[in-house]
């Protein structure tokens, strides 16, 4: 099979796996923990390599997972002192972990190729050539198998703990009283996220793995407030952006992880604008509708108040509305015509008159 086949496979697997692990992270409003974990993996990797006397995959993996968990526990511990806010704790712990990693590298491995650059950006093109060979048989790139294992782990976790994840996220106190310690959920979720980041980052780099963990779930959250659609949208966005980003990057000889992030950004931007529930345009339209509705109500009440009074001739004219409400002429017109179109009043004569429907509209209790 050709290298580009493996490339696409790695990218899609990373997209789907990371996206899945991000769903509850985003629902629990802890997206930045993914960022923190992905950075603090570094000293764990170094520790693993140091113990194994070289870039040993399994040792590095174990070290990285341990480092991710350490970060989670330190953040939790610092927050629990109530002397440091949670965001400050995150902002302190992961740079400290990263700093330890960088210093350790400079002391121990100045000759080994483990530069922070590739930790951040990843080397997806090289990942294809790191083969998994057993008994002389080439089973494809290592990354494929690692990501596949992470994917299975994510699916199993979401299915097995679906009840516990829900109750602990919705109401942690209630969950605890029911015998579900939400810390167990918190830490197990962090283990899954850490393993996913570690599995993904050798192929696609720390930053893209964070992007794929956070952004698809955030997009899905903007589009739906039901769990199953959220999961489906998250998966689709993860997969699509990975595939489109990779193919565009190959065609244009561009940085693959970077371009996948950019595509995630494009989808996010479109959702932000056009989402039917929460999108900016939908929101604007809703606000305009409310503004019009309120203006029409005020107009109807004004006309009603002056109905059959001597001032009616001056008060209930289209021209007077700008003085009465401080409206611009064009807005007065559009409010009045809108109300006419809804059959609430009639503009046939100089004096504006309410229709039956208009009268009903402003009756109390309506």
């Amino acid at each position: 099979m050709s290298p580009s086949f493996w490339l696409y496979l790695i990218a899609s697997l990373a997209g789907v796996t990371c996206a899945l692990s991000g769903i509850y992270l985003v629902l629990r409003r802890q997206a930045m923990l993914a960022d923190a974990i992905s950075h603090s993996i570094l000293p764990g990797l170094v520790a693993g390599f140091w113990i194994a006397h070289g870039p040993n995959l399994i040792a590095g993996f174990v070290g990285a997972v341990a480092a991710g968990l350490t970060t989670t526990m330190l953040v939790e511990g610092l927050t629990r002192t109530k002397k440091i806010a949670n965001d400050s704790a995150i902002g302190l712990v992961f740079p400290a972990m990263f700093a330890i990693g960088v210093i350790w590298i400079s002391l121990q491995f100045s000759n080994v190729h483990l530069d922070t650059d590739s930790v951040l950006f990843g080397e997806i093109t090289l990942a294809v050539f790191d083969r998994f060979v057993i008994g002389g048989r080439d089973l494809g790139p290592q990354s494929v198998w690692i990501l596949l294992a992470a994917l299975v782990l994510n699916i199993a976790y979401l299915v097995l703990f679906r009840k516990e994840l829900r109750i602990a996220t919705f109401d942690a106190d209630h969950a605890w009283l029911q015998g579900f310690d939400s810390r167990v959920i918190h830490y197990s979720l962090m283990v899954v996220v850490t393993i996913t980041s570690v599995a993904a980052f050798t192929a696609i780099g720390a930053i893209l793995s964070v992007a794929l963990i956070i952004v698809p779930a955030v997009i899905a959250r903007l589009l739906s407030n039901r769990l199953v659609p959220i999961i489906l949208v998250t998966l689709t966005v993860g997969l699509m952006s990975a595939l489109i980003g990779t193919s565009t990057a190959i065609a244009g000889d561009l940085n693959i992880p970077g371009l996948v992030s950019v595509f995630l950004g494009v989808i996010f931007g479109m959702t932000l604008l056009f989402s039917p529930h929460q999108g900016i345009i939908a929101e604007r339209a809703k606000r305009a509708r409310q503004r019009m509705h309120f203006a029409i109500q005020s107009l109807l009440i004004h006309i009603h108040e002056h109905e059959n009074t001597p001032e009616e001739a001056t008060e209930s004219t289209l021209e007077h509305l700008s003085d009465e409400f401080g409206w611009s002429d064009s807005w007065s017109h559009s409010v009045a015509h809108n109300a006419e179109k809804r059959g609430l009043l009639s503009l046939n004569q100089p004096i504006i008159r309410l229709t039956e429907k208009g009268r009903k509209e402003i009756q109390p209790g309506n």
Partner: protein
Amino acid sequence: MSLSIRDLTVIYRDAPVLRDIDLDLPKGQLCAIVGPNGAGKSTLIKAALGLVEPVSGSINWCGAPLRTQKTKVGYVPQRSSVDWDFPTDVFDVVLMGTFSRVGWLKSPGKAERKRVAECLDLVGMAEYAKTQISQLSGGQQQRVFFARALAQNAELTFMDEPFAGVDATTEESLLNVLKTMKSEGKTIIAVHHDLQTVRERFDHITLLNKRIIASGSMDATFTESNLKAAYGIDFAIAGGVD
């Protein structure tokens, strides 16, 4: 006396919120905890539930530590304490009340679902079963919490201001739920803020202001002198005191 609190002290930010609390509450009754703002009412029930770590003290239910019998305890928190944006529906939230019986890694079955439907019916929310929780009004949210507590079928339920900010109809139907629970022998302990209504709604009252001012049956305890001791100002009790 079945809920027994001994020597409970809770400190928050260096200042004692509750100090040397000794309190006994009867089984099978509707018990109110009242007191001025900052008296530690919510803290008291959170400490009893184990949600707040006390500096000292023990809480026993029927002679055994309450924390070893968590599954017998229900809780109706203040509405603002949960994530109403969480993507789920009313039925699912009430179903969560059955999770302690179901246990880790297992799914609730037919019996639980039937129970949830009954509870929703009791609080008048049956037609909202599939509604997203983000679309509920305040009163409806409170009904959902009551249904969740019912579904749990706990012996002892703590409620934090159950009638705060709900409309009159909801209040009426929630009161009926409380009466139903009482008739089934359940114990309710609720933080209540409204002195006007506490008398007719509860059987037992505890006046709290960082310490226990008075605790006992409504008639014997709801007196002007006790209220004055708790609130520090004079109160004219509507309808008079016997």
